[in-house]
């Protein structure tokens, strides 16, 4: 059994998404702050270096071209340390060093620094020297009126490990606080989602209460959050359908048991009575005949119930052809004619209607049940009239008969299974009360509809079938 992979729980999904969002926001924020601080340090450094460069330039140009190296060194010594940790190295193009701060002594400045002419925050370079980290620049200084070949190279640098340290601890703090904030956020979201999904849990608890004896459960649409209203509404619709079908089925099952109880009781009783003492051949024969009648009744009921079950499973099981309803009615009238005449009832047929597509045997059966009902309930001397007509899209067959009529309280229920209008539940030549239920299920299986209406002295059944 390979089942499809279960998607992550909603709470986990939402929490993860929100958590990622929170983390991302914090990280971007932290990175921006870091960039800003870094930028600020660089601006600051370049300002300091600019100032230092100006000082160096002043000192150089006062004594241009520098002859007195000693004096130059002294002046620089005096001027520079005051400029917050700027170190400096002055050399001629011939690499002869004129001046070097203590940090540069005995060591060369990084040799790969390109020579620039202006200082901006962006063209500062960084290099490491042992423990120290420097940010600096190499400039070409030449007096305005000097020859192009006559210039000095000055390397200026600031020790910035303090900045680095600060940045490092800042970054630690940033990470820690980001993580902490994300954790707090995620916990908050987790709790929030949990609370947010509570209505869903309530709904599912209510649904869990559904069982075959508690099909009346419905979800309260007003109490549901707007997102769940649609779900709740479709659930309620489904439950309505399930309950109706279930109700009908269980009623049907009860009715079947009830209907079968009578003939089976009769059979058992009469057989036991017959066996209770010796009897003549004629008597035994009577018992068998009477049993046969009961069996036929049961058999007929079984047939009808199977037919109902079959038609209710829909059109897929029917064999469809083009059917002329007029022809079917005509054949049925021929069939019933003798019987109707014996009861003093006459039959008439008028009108025409379009052909329908359906199962001929089934349709014939439906019309037959309507006709036999009508004939049976017509008083002597009355006329059962069948009329056919077309309405847009439908062929209409109506069967009308005079007679006592069906009381209004029964009218809506005449199509129910096992429903009989007279409560005496007499079982003369009437069936088990499935006749009209069969008509209804056949008509509906064909996509048609049937209605009954009855007045004081006139009853009419109208069957509408979708036309070809």
């Amino acid at each position: 059994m390979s089942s499809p992979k279960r998607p992550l729980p909603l709470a986990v999904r939402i929490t993860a998404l929100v958590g990622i969002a929170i983390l991302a926001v914090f990280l971007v924020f932290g990175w921006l702050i870091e960039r800003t601080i870094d930028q600020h340090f660089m601006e600051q450094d370049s300002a300091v270096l600019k100032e230092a460069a100006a000082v160096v330039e002043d000192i150089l140009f006062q004594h241009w071209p520098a002859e007195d190296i000693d004096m130059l060194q002294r002046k620089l010594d005096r001027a520079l340390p005051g400029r917050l940790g700027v170190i400096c190295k002055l050399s001629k193009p011939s690499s002869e060093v004129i001046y070097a701060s203590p940090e540069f002594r005995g060591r060369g400045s990084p040799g790969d620094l390109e020579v620039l002419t202006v200082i901006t925050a962006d063209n500062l370079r960084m290099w490491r020297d042992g423990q120290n980290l420097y940010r600096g620049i190499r400039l070409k200084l030449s007096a305005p009126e000097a020859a192009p070949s006559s210039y000095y190279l000055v390397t200026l640098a600031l020790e910035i490990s303090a900045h680095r340290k600060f940045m490092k601890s800042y970054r630690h703090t940033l990470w820690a606080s980001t993580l902490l904030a994300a954790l707090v956020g995620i916990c908050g979201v987790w709790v929030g989602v949990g609370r947010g999904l509570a209505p869903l849990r309530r709904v599912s608890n209510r649904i869990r209460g559904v069982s075959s004896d508690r099909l009346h459960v419905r979800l309260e649409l007003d109490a549901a959050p707007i997102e769940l209203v649609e779900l709740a509404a479709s659930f309620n619709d489904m439950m309505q359908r399930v309950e109706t079908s279930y109700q009908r089925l269980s009623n049907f099952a009860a009715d079947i048991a009830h209907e079968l109880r009578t003939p089976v009781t009769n059979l058992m009783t009469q057989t036991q009575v017959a066996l209770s003492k010796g009897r003549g051949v004629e008597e035994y024969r009577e018992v068998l005949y009477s049993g046969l009648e009961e069996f036929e009744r049961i058999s007929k009921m079984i047939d009808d119930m199977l037919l109902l079950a079959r038609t209710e499973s829909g059109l897929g099981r029917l064999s469809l052809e083009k059917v002329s309803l007029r022809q079917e009615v005509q054949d049925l009238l021929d069939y019933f004619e003798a019987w109707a005449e014996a009861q003093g009832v006459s039959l008439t047929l008028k009108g025409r209607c379009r052909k329908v597509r359906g199962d001929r045997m089934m349709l014939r059966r439906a019309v037959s049940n309507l006709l036999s009902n009508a004939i049976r309930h017509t008083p002597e001397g009355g006329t059962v009239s069948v009329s056919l007509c077309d309405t847009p899209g439908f062929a209409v067959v109506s069967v009308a008969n005079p007679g006592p009529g069906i009381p209004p309280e029964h009218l809506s229920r005449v199509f129910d299974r096992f429903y009989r209008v007279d409560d005496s539940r007499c079982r003369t030549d009437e069936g088990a009360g499935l006749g009209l239920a069969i008509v209804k299920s056949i008509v509906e299986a064909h996509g048609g509809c049937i209605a009954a209406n009855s007045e004081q002295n006139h009853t009419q059944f109208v069957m509408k079938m979708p036309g070809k």
Partner: protein
Amino acid sequence: MKLLVVEDEAKTREYLRKGLTEAGFVVDTAANGLDGRHLAMTEQFDLIVMDIMLPDLDGWRLLASLREAGNATPVLFLTARDSVSDRVQGLESGADDYLVKPFAFSELLARVRNILRRGLAPLSGNQLSVGDLTLDVSRRSARRGDADIQLTTKEFTLLELFVRRQGEVLPRSLIASQVWDMNFDSDTNVIDVAVRRLRMKVDDGHDIKLIQTVRGMGYRLDVRNELP
């Protein structure tokens, strides 16, 4: 006439054997598909009555294997399943007829005789007669003794059915389907009324009643008046 009954339900099998034997047939029985096939292949039968739902080899497959082996014995299916597709499958698979349980024994008997009659030459001639009743099929007229009987079209068809199958009990369902093409029980006594009318026209005023009611089974036309 020799029949084979293939049915796994013991009670049903025994009663079919008894009933068919008493109706004048020689009956062999088998309780499952494999035995049924073996019997059908080794002996000559005029008709096989078989249940579709058999424990080992179901009716469809049994029938198919018989036809494959070139055995053309007519087959009548019995089934508890009643659906259009089953019915269609039953007739398409080469079964000759099909009966849904619960069925009346008289119905089964009528159908068995119907299938067996198919193999015979059609009844020749336009004249059918039983005792002093004669039917002219082409003119659709009937006489009893020396008097004409006035019959409607359906009445004549009904009488012709009785005469052609004289001596056989015809269940109401068979009459309804043969004469009116109504293949269902209409829970009315339409057939009784029709037969009663025909009987008035055919038998009234005659000592010998040709059309007889067989209680619990149906109707029969016979010159001998032997009620069971």
